[in-house]
């Protein structure tokens, strides 16, 4: 909602805002731990169901509809099946790391949600280094993937794991720079304050380039189509989870969809305005925004073909990294020029800069290697 004298209060966090949630009670952490675990598991199941149904609708067919009304028990059936499968351990595998890898890949997903606000002040821990916490913890799952690839003692798993680590590490940089732009606008690292700072205008309108970078970089980090070459069906190397079966594989699968939940939540919180909204309760607005972001991710998965591995790396380093730097510089200039409130005409300027940069980038960006002489 834009009022004529638009402000983005960069110094808002100095003024005290009374939260709607009574923090600092002794049961606060207990309630929130339960809420987080339930939230993640339920949302992962809903995401998987939504994805199967919506991709089917895009392709002129119906998704699963026999197990339960509208197929909602399909995932429970899948989980039961995976629980009952035999967990095969390869002979040469490093057993301890083999068993720990799925846990290391899945645990950060739940931990990261500790700093996401569901209502004003309703979060497990209102750390004042919120975004740093998010970036740091979500990098731990990369170690889990490397552990999986290494301990399988299978050269294809190792190759798949190396590819994946290279891709994730390359895309960390544009993602972190896009997050840094948001931090500059809001003036605080805490996620609750960032949501409060979007009271007048969500940041997607103010920083379209940052949103684009976070969305594309986020999709690449969580191996989502069009960047899903690690787990592709029509490629031949099956990736780092070749040797896993049963519940360990299920943890990787849940970890992938859990990261999708986390990325959608982050984008909804940082760019779309979090729990803000007119009439409905705030946590419902957050859920609606999460589902909107998820729908866009599913939509791109259904439409776009896959990129090649060297094109993936070239996109990160040669296209998105310079754009992220330029985004940061321009945001810094704007925040410095108008320290208390950004005026209204900044919005069209930012959109124009985004379009010009994307067009320039498409002119100058050469995609990947060609044929190699043998």
């Amino acid at each position, binding site marked *: 909602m834009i009022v004529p004298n638009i402000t983005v209060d960069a110094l808002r966090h100095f003024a005290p805002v009374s939260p709607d949630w009574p923090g600092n009670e002794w049961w606060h952490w207990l309630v929130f731990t339960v809420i987080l675990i339930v939230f993640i598991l339920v949302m992962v199941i809903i995401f998987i169901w939504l994805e199967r149904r919506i*991709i089917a609708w*895009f*392709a*002129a*067919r119906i998704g699963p509809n026999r197990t339960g009304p509208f197929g909602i028990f399909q995932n429970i059936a899948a989980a039961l099946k995976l629980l009952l499968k035999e967990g095969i351990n390869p002979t040469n595998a490093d057993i301890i790391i083999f068993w720990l890898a799925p846990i290391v890949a899945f645990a950060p997903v739940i931990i990261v949600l500790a700093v996401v606000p569901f209502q004003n002040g309703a979060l497990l821990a209102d750390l004042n280094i919120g975004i740093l916490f998010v970036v740091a913890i979500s990098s731990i799952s990369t170690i889990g993937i490397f552990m999986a690839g290494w301990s399988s003692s299978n*050269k294809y798993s190792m190759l798949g794991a190396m590819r994946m680590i290279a891709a994730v590490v390359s895309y960390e940089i544009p993602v972190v720079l896009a997050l840094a732009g948001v931090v500059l606008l809001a003036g605080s690292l805490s996620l609750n304050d960032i949501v409060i700072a979007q009271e007048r205008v969500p940041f997607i309108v103010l920083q379209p380039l940052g949103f684009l970078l976070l969305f594309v970089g986020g999709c690449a980090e969580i191996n989502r*189509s*069009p960047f*899903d*070459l690690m787990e*592709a*069906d*029509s*490629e*031949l*190397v099956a990736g780092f989870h070749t040797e896993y079966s049963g519940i360990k594989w299920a943890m990787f699968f849940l970890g992938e969809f859990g990261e999708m939940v986390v990325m959608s939540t982050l984008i909804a919180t940082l760019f779309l305005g979090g729990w803000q909204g007119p009439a409905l309760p705030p946590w419902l607005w957050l859920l609606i925004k999460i589902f909107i972001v998820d729908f866009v991710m599913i939509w791109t*998965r*259904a*439409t*776009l*073909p*896959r*990129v*090649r*591995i*060297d*094109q993936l790396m070239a996109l990160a380093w040669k296209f998105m990294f310079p754009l992220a730097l330029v985004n940061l510089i321009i945001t810094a200039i704007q925040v410095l020029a108008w320290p208390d409130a950004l005026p209204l005409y900044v919005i069209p300027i930012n959109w124009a800069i985004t379009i010009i940069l994307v067009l320039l980038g498409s002119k100058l960006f050469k*995609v*990947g290697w*060609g*044929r*190699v*002489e*043998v």
Partner: protein
Amino acid sequence: MRLRTEPFVLNIGPVHPSTHGVFRMRATLDGEVVVDLEPVFGYLHRGIEKLAEERTYGGVIPLTDRLDYVASVTNNLGYVLAVEKLAGISVPERAEYIRVITSEMQRIAAHLVSVGSFLNDAGAYFTPFLYMYRERENIVDLFDMVCGQRLLYSYMRIGGVSQDLPDEFLPALRKFIPRMRSRIDEYDWLLKENEILLARAKGVGVLPRETAINIGASGPVLRGSGVKWDLRKADPYSVYDRFEFDIPTGEIGDCYDRYRVRIEEMRQSLRIIEQAVKQIPPGEVRSEVPHLLRPPAGEAYAHVEGATGEVGFHVVSDGSIAPYRCHIRAPSLMNLTALKDMIVGWKVQDLILIFGSFAITMGEVDR
């Protein structure tokens, strides 16, 4: 300081998650780059040429269906033309028009399968594949109406076609043609300018023009390399010389060009069907041929433009009721000769895509 690496052999086995049947490639990889490739086929050999020597001339027709099982009408047509040339049988005019209409419908259906599989290999998660199959369902319904089967038709007979078109065929076909045109335009809107597809397929797997002519390639593989050669114009069979259509060609012969050639050929096939539906005369559809045909001793060769290229049938007869020898020139096998040169130097993901852009059918390669 260069890292010392060792190439390793990867067996892309006969059962692969990608499409296109049982084909085995032993690729030597150095990192991600393919250094050497050895194709191994023969897993689907059923001895069709030998079986053809034990059946009557009319009984070979169901066997020829099973060659290129995606486009079976053109295979039937090639064999039947060879036998008619051998025995000197003429075909009524309505049958010729029906042959042209069904061949072109079959070509559209086969190209839909090829393009859908190609896009599936490129990674779009089954969505364009299912859209193409939705359009193919309309064609297959029409074939079901005419001859009772949906995939392996055995519709042609020596001396014409097996049965006449039912009454509801031509109105349904007239409804189908504008719908298919608008859908092809929609698929162009979907994927023709897609940056990811352009990055994956443009410039990848180039087949130079001279190589294509030297190895005897035909069909969209040859036309994608820029050679304007189509049997329907170069050596017209049946009544193709009465229709007006163009031959689309590509420029440099990469995967993108082959994909565009197939899409444009679908549009030209729709043009031919429209003209044939306007010109079709009434009459009978089958001329009188003895039940156990004994052609005079001799040999004949007839070729047709199938969906993958030039399908040729060489029939040798010695005067008895069964052919003495029936040799089949399989276009997919000739096109595959260039596979190694096209793939060496590219990466593993490009290998899948280049192989998918050939659109071979293993039933033809192995017979």
